[in-house]
């Protein structure tokens, strides 16, 4: 299935929808262009895996390779801290959706204001709503979702991907950014 339509059937929003991320290389290019990107990771990352790798490990590698600070919401931060990863900050998912609407806000001094945000690890509808806040009220920020399913409110999103394709895409993104694999 490679369709750029909302995964949850009724989640249609309005006249615009996310551009389809057809090639992972686009993520690399967008990240390289961004001045202050931010990675926002939710609690589904605690249980999801890409191939055999936990998503927490994946994001630690991604963050390290691309020097992107991570916001880990709810108890997700515990997993990052346990791995002695410290470029990570704790905010609630609704808090971060609110704070990013303030164009001056930054996760830490000199690490913002943010112009690109990547998201992963939420119930589909919650991510959909968080992205709605950003697309409507934080026009200075572009968003990329890294989940398997199409999120229409993002600026860029994968179409609904089979697991294998999604794994490949994540791997390629990491290698473009200079991560291990």
């Amino acid at each position, binding site marked *: *299935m490679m369709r750029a339509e909302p*995964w*949850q*059937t009724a989640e249609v*929003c*309005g*006249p*615009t929808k996310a551009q389809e991320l057809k090639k992972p290389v686009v993520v690399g290019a967008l990240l390289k262009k961004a001045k202050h990107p931010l990675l926002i990771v*939710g*609690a589904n990352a605690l249980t999801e895996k890409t191939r055999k790798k936990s998503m927490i490990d994946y994001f630690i590698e991604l963050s390290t390779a691309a020097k992107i600070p991570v916001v880990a*919401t*709810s*108890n997700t*931060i*515990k*997993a990052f*801290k*346990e791995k002695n990863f410290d470029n990570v900050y*704790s905010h*609630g*998912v*609704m*808090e971060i*959706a*609110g*704070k990013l*609407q*303030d164009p001056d*806000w930054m996760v830490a001094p000199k690490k913002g204001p943010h112009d690109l945000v990547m998201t992963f690890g*939420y*119930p*589909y*509808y*919650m991510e959909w*709503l*968080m992205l*709605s*806040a950003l697309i*409507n*009220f934080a*026009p200075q920020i572009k968003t990329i979702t890294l989940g398997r399913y199409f999120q229409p409110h993002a600026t860029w999103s994968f179409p609904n991907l089979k697991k294998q394709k999604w794994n490949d895409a994540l791997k390629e993104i990491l290698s473009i950014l200079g991560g291990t694999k």
Partner: protein
Amino acid sequence: MTEQKRARIKADKLDTGFGSFRNVEVTIGKVIDEDWDEPMGPTPMPGVTTLRDWDHKLLTKYEPSYMPACQLCCLCTFGKCDLTGGKRGACGLDIKAQSARIVLAACNIGCAAHLAHARHLVDHLIHEFGPRYQLTQGEGVDIEAPVSRLVTGIRPRTLDDASSILDYCETQLTHTLSAVHTGQEGSWIDFESKAFHAGMVDQVGMEIADLVQISTMGFPQSDPEAPLVEAGMASMDQSKANILCIGHNVVPAAAITDYAMEHNLQNKLDVSGICCTAWDITRHDAKAKIVGPISWQLRFVRSGIADVVVVDEQCIRTDIAQHAQKVNAPVIATCDKSCMGLPDRTNDDVDDIVADLVSFKVPGVFIGDHNKVGEVVVKTAIAVKPKRKGKTSLPSKKKIQELAQACRQCSECRRACPNDQPIMEAVLAAQEANFGPLGDVYDECIGCARCESACPNEYDLHSWMVTAAKDRWMNESYLVRTGRGAIKDTEIRAVGQPVVFGEIPGVIAHVGCANYPDGGRAIHDMCEEFAQRRFIIVLSGCAAMTVGTIKDDEGKSIYERRSGHFDAGGVVNVGSCVSNPHIAGAAIKIASIFAKRNLRGNYEEIADYIHNRVGAVGISWGAMSQKAASIASGFWRLGVPVIVGPHGAKYRRMLLGRADRAKDWMVYDARTGNEVQIAPGPEHLFYAVENMEECMVLTAKLAIRPNDTARGRAIKLSHYIDLHERYKGYFPDDVHTFIRRETDIPITLKDKIHAQMKENKWKERPIPDPTLLKRMVFGGNGGSK
């Protein structure tokens, strides 16, 4: 025609929705309360803008964060209008104001549902008992209706007074509803203020609804030892005729149990309820049973246990008649708001109606006369039971396995599921006679049947799950304490000081619907955790049922383990949705009984008191409805923070404080008039959490109030720190912001906190007598200054 009811008010100064007057005696009607010596406060019967300044204070401190579910507006024929990218609609509205308008629309709808319910009860009871019937919440409750007193300046003594108070509410709702019309309100902050108004009015309407039913229908009256009643799908006695009542309005259900009692037929019948009617019928008759929360409707009807299905109002599945028809269970609609397309037989002969139902000539009827409902339902249930023979629409496992072979593996079921359940995978497992996965889906299913609607093979997927989990629900039986009603004044007197000083670290209210993200266990676990920490736990509605489903090793539910007293560690069920104002009322009564503040028509001062002093937090883990929105809104206006579970994000608007902006956290010290920096607490006014772990930590944090004494602050901080360390895995880095003086520091954590204070260049701060209202400065206890 009901008589025009009016109120008379004497006051030195009167601010009303119509204007501000001095030295007035207004006769708005016939509620004359000459023997009440409490002075009238500044805002009896506030109009839509009377409390606008207060709302704007809250809405500046807790700015809305909108997450539109739709970027278009299609409410008028100018539209559809595209509101993306800063564009405005043809009426001039932008997406922020439109988003606020949706919030107001939801609160109006919720308020209307409760108000109409209250109006029906009051008119019905006046008809039954007469307008002068005396109202009471029971012994030990002198402040019988704290919310009504606070808002309207009236204390409802009789059914007639209750009716007058509803007149006020209905007028206000008309105004807030009209504001949603195209070309009325234009600013987000005023839409929000009106949403607060609708929420406040809703609290009054609910309070009246519960007060009149408590007074007249034999409910427990502020009884901490209200009866334990049977609950769960297995609690029905299937040798008897089973009557299921769904909804919120107890009058038809009560007519059924009353008829059965009067005719000595109880041993032939089992009456049960789903949703709030379940609570209220067990408050009326403790032998009645509770099937479960709102999402149990389909599974129970399809099980075929119910011989007759009676619906009243609110939160009923609108297609319930079709589902009941499949199991030959006649449906009786009883409420003008939900006639379900059934023929009106109100004026027909009882035996004719029963004959038509029992012969399945009609699948159901609408009967608007409650006494007739009692007779028809009882007679029908007894007569139809042997004919139905427990007919079920649940398929056998064999049938499921056979049907599952044709699954197209299209994933449409999963894509339709609000909880993203792996339904297709479970169906594929069922092909191999492995029903475990379907049973697992049942555990996290909210019974919406969207998966069924989506399936191109028209599989009854929800039924498949129910069949797969049959072993579980066939044994689902537990005890819950039915709704006690109000909190006694004496209980408030005992806990007022420790709550305000922070030594009882908070009052946590779990309320609302059953739109749970992953089953309801989280509610139980949160209640147990905080009860152990000596918070006071208050519950109502579906949440109050769900909390009872988890049993300990001895097979006891939380209600059997814990006291129903409003005290540290208590687990207190106040009752149904309309019982929620007992929770707000407890906070209001703390201000009155402990702090001796006047309540009468004195909304702003009391809200300011509660916001700054009473560590109350509302949680609606499965909030679904517009009613839940307006209930929350009533708490927001009182300055009480509300947390919702993940699905609550779909209310599309949070009210968020900014802990990082010191200027947002200033109060007046009422003793000196100085503006004083406070800690960011409560940090948010409305917040959707991602999961239970976030909820635990946030709840402890939101209980912090500027007025905490040193000891109280230290206790609250130790709970916050402990839960933060458990769930987030590290010592929270904002503890220093909550330390005002050395004495605030929890003794066992001194070293860590000192280090953090040093690192952040901490400075000592005074503990103020906090208020957001300048007029309260200098001993402000008067209320009408």
